[in-house]
């Protein structure tokens, strides 16, 4: 009986989580006339696929997706690289102002993005980063780096110090201790931080819509928003683009979730 209830609950959660995807697919494969008419289309109409393809072909959705990928991947790589170095320093070294550094990193999460939009805009003009994907990556890293740093620092704290000392005794330089010993041991946390940083970049909209004027530089999020017209919004195209926009992120998550497992340090030390 308890098992049945458990499966019922799981089923309910699956329906709740999957409903938006279903709705998106159904809407994407419906004609606008069907959407604005009476009666609800229940199942995705696959015969409308060529029509959806034609509508999406009118916008450079491939380029936008590529831009999104650059922003998300660039931000992820930069956040993880800098985050692992900063996390290691915060985890293993004692220095003046360590607490302050932690506090300041935390404060970046408290500041709303909209609040720093204008100062950032001024800075981007000064540094020539306006309308550039690199600028957008840097702006995003400002927010995802502290998260990555905290996540990785926490994971490094849990790595027994003796493993590191053992590597030092074995003639392993400090940098290699980090890259060859510590980082492989905290792979689950790196994967978790990567998910956070990647999705922060993938879903980026505010900075992108403000700093990127050139249509060719837009990420998919801004491109998606451009479908909304003054008099008309092609809902099926919007949902179709949104579906295409979601798929790479889902694939990324499915690939990386296998890394998010615990217990990699098992067997390292006694106890």
């Amino acid at each position, binding site marked *: 009986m308890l098992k049945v209830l458990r499966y019922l609950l799981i089923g309910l959660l699956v329906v709740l989580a999957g409903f938006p995807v279903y709705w998106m697919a159904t809407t994407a494969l419906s004609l606008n006339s069907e959407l604005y008419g009476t009666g609800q289309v229940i199942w995705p109409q696959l015969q409308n696929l060529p029509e959806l393809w034609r509508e999406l072909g009118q916008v450079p959705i491939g380029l936008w997706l590529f831009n999104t990928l650059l922003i998300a991947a660039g931000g992820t790589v930069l956040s993880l690289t800098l985050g692992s170095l900063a996390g290691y320093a915060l985890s293993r070294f004692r220095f003046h102002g360590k607490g302050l550094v932690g506090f300041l990193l935390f404060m970046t999460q408290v500041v709303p993005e909209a609040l720093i939009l204008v100062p950032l805009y001024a800075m981007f003009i000064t540094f020539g980063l306006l309308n550039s994907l690199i600028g957008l990556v840097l702006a995003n890293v400002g927010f995802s780096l502290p998260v990555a740093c905290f996540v990785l620092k926490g994971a490094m704290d849990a790595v027994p110090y003796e*493993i590191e000392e053992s590597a030092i005794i*074995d003639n392993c330089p400090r940098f290699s201790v980090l890259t060859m010993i510590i980082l492989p041991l905290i792979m689950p946390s790196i994967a978790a931080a990567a998910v956070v940083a990647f999705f922060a970049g993938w879903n980026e909209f505010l900075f992108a819509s403000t700093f990127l004027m050139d249509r060719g530089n837009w990420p998919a999020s801004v491109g998606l928003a451009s479908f909304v017209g003054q008099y008309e919004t092609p809902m099926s195209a919007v949902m179709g683009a949104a579906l295409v926009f979601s798929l790479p992120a889902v694939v990324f998550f499915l690939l990386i979730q296998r890394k998010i497992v615990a217990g990699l340090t098992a067997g390292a*030390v006694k106890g």
Partner: protein
Amino acid sequence: MPALTFKNVSKNFGDHSVIKAFNADIHDGEFLVLLGPSGCGKSTLLRMIAGLSDITSGDLRFDGQIANDWEPKRRGVAFVFQTYALYPHMTVRENIAFPLIMDAFRKWYHLPVVNIIARHRLMRRSDIAERTLKMARQLELEPLLDRRPASLSGGQRQRVALARALVRDPSLYLLDEPLSNLDAKLRTQMRSEISALHNKVGKTFVYVTHDQVEAMTMASRIIIMDKGVVQQVDTPDNVYDNPANTFVAKFIGSPPMNLIPASVRPSGLMLSGEIAVEHREALPSRREAMFGIRPEKLELKPVGEGRLPARVAVIERLGAETVIGCRFITGKDDAGELLIEQDLVFVRVSGNPKMQIGEACSLDYRSEDVLWFDVDTGQRLS
């Protein structure tokens, strides 16, 4: 192969002093054991030798050169950690080969990604592969070479840690209680193997343990420590036969040396304030002293034949020998009252005597087997 010299070496953690003015010389090629109870500072001392802990004050010299600030790499040591400290993401083979691979690494091999390729290539290099295999065979790890530490037992992990330290050719071997997690049989085997290895390589070994059997069987010299202070530095025989103080006398030997408060009287000795003993040779020049005698130096005799009347309180039959714990019987006891001493007086006899608990007996000794200690300081009296 460096000779090590400690000159007034101290280590403080905040206000807490862990090692106080440590002075010692570790000779080239010797097997030195640091022995003491938990928390006495012996592991800290080993870490200071390895360069893993800073020295608060004093000098540590390697071959006469002050090495206080030397990096671990420059010291050329191998270290076996008490907690194994294995690399859990590497196989046993990779763990053992890691020091060899690091020695073979060029500077640019340390670049990320490059290090992965370089490591895989070096793992296949014939000299590294052979040495790894040889060490694994020596420690009976060959069937486990492709397994990860998480799937090994405690003893197997400890052997991997030992193999990783021994596979290199360092000038100094530092071992921090390396056998603490092995079962009795394997411990005995590894004791012999480490001793054999020391004889074979002829390098300096510094070995930390709280197990006196390990210390007595393996050491060429022992440093006994308590609360960060050196109690005695000597050969195992001398530490046992001529302890410098009551701490050493109690710490070395199982059961430990019998220490009985004694008053020197013109007529002889008064032990524990109750038992008058006829004893006039080799007495200390002071009135009160601590009478020390090893259990095997006491003789167990039938009632009336020895100078110390006693009653059996504990019997530990060990097969080849028997340890008997006795309580002295005073004159009052003859009237039926038993004076209970705080500590038992232990006697070690060979074989398996047919004694019963509660049975009366007597103990005796030779005057030259008695060691005298100061009652207040615990120091040995000459």
